């Protein structure tokens, strides 16, 4: 059984510690799940019974979902393994076709087996806990129907056509081709300069940076606060952060734009108008949101508007002065010209 044996040996030759984890972790999780389910059933038998009843009423839906998941997983693995099979070392071994086919099917259907194991894990533990406490067989019926769904899905996946392999991707630069007739010719316009600072602002909002900013805010929220207040506060700080990020983005982008566009016949006023107007308009939107959120938090309307206007004024002054300083630095390097 070369194919199955190879799969087993690959698993067997793994790091022993990792192999132990692969065996013992599911078992430990299973027993923990049984214990937790038992405790929950004992604590609130009525709620558990109604939940199980709800699951039982939708058995057909859950088995259909399981069938689709199983079919997709098995089909994807089949496509992957069949694309790798001609390059595998087992491809050169003398095997009769029938044996090679059933061994390949066994390897390809591993996702369905894993799905069955997962269902057994969830419903087995639940059934045991419920049977001990509530003497109902509803989870057993749901388990049986979803298991049937997984098996039917795995079988149906063999009816799906595997995806065709592409040797060279469509836009490969090594494939000669004629110019596409539909390529529209670029039209002269400076409007793209306005979108650059906004893109820079979003580019600077990296998930890690946002997480680092968000954690201290969440820690600073006093105990007993309502979730809605916390959400509004985070929204308010996001609006303020967007204004700050936009100021920084305009300054850094204008420095880069001036270096890039220096040899072009572009007036500084033209560049300023194209770059600053969209940024200031975005700042206006952010500060309007800020005012609204301050009002939502319970401040009077006039005070909320005043806070927004103050932020807009400070942001606009910093943006314009930052741009002018960058312009002056570039201009002096180029002998008084842009």
């Amino acid at each position, binding site marked *: 059984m070369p194919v199955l044996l190879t799969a087993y040996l690959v698993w067997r030759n793994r790091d022993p510690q990792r192999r132990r984890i692969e065996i013992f972790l599911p078992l430990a999780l299973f027993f923990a799940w049984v214990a937790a389910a038992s405790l929950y059933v004992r604590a609130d038998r009525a709620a558990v019974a109604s939940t199980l009843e709800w699951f039982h009423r939708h058995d057909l839906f859950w088995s259909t979902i399981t069938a689709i998941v199983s079919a997709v997983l098995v089909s994807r693995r089949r496509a992957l393994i069949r694309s790798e099979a001609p390059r595998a070392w087992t491809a050169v071994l003398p095997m009769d076709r029938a044996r090679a086919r059933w061994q390949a099917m066994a390897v390809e259907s591993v996702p369905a087996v894993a799905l069955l194991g997962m269902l057994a894990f969830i419903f087995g533990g639940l059934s045991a806990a419920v049977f001990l406490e509530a003497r109902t067989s509803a989870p057993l019926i749901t388990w049986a129907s979803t298991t049937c769904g997984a098996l039917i899905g795995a079988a149906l996946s063999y009816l799906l056509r595997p995806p065709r392999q592409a040797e060279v991707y469509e836009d490969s630069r090594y494939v000669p081709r004629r110019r596409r007739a539909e390529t529209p010719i670029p039209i*002269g316009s400076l409007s793209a300069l306005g*979108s650059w600072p906004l893109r820079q602002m979003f*580019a600077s909002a990296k998930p890690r940076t946002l997480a680092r900013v968000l954690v201290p805010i969440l820690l600073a929220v006093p105990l007993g606060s309502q979730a809605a207040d916390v959400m509004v506060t985070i929204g308010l700080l996001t609006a303020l952060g967007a204004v700050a990020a936009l100021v920084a983005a305009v300054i850094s982008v204008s420095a880069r734009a001036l270096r890039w566009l220096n*040899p072009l016949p572009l007036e500084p006023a033209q560049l300023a108008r194209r770059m600053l107007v969209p940024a200031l308009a975005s700042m206006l939107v952010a500060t309007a949101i800020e005012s609204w959120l301050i009002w939502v938090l319970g401040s009077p309307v006039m005070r909320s508007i005043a806070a927004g206007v103050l932020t807009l004024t400070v942001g606009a002054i910093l943006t314009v002065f930052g741009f002018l300083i960058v312009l002056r630095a570039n201009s002096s*390097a180029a*002998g008084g010209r842009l």
Partner: protein
Amino acid sequence: MADFNLEVRNLGAAYGRHVVLKDVSLRLPAGEWFALMGPNGCGKSTLLDCIVGKLAPLSGQIRIAGHPLLTDSANARRALGYACAPDRLPPLLTARQCFEVHAGAKGQPTIDDTVMALADELKFLPYLESFVDTLSLGTRQKLAVLLCLVGDPKLIVLDEAFNGLDPASSLALKRHLQWRLKNRGATLILATHALDIVERYADHGALLLDGVLAREWTKSEIEELRRNGRGFEAALVDDGDANPPGS
């Protein structure tokens, strides 16, 4: 109509107290491929920076297509095409937006057909909607060169522009530049270390050593070097021995 697309007179430039260029003078007529050579740090890029207006000269005058760079900057720049270094391109704009900005700045309603044809020849069109940040170095180099040709410039300034280009693209670009010099009356100034390009394509060459033009080769001298097989490598080494840097 100006006789010369580039006139540089007694140009001097410095970074702080460090003088880089001393009394450099050049006159390049229309249709000429001029190659600027010299060792690293001799002032080639500084000379180009002065010509394209990125660096203010200490002394001297620069005229592009008859327009003084200092007093008639807008017209001088309109006649100028400069391929910036690939890392100077805006990372968060698409290639199409770069073209739009260049055309907009030069007052062009659209991109010239010849530039689009070259973009097609360089296999650049599939990248038109890609962000500059996602392009490879060679593709960015192509974009920089294509942008410099927007607006039919009279003076084309390229600083090591063939670096990073694949051989087919490099050849297509050289042929296009030759066509542009012949049919559009443009002048090309190319700073390069690639002596084979100088031997094969240049009409006029100069060696910059320690901020001064130490040696110039006319078209007939370059043809003579090409004919006798001695080549620029030997010629440059001889000149370098005669005028070692720092002597």
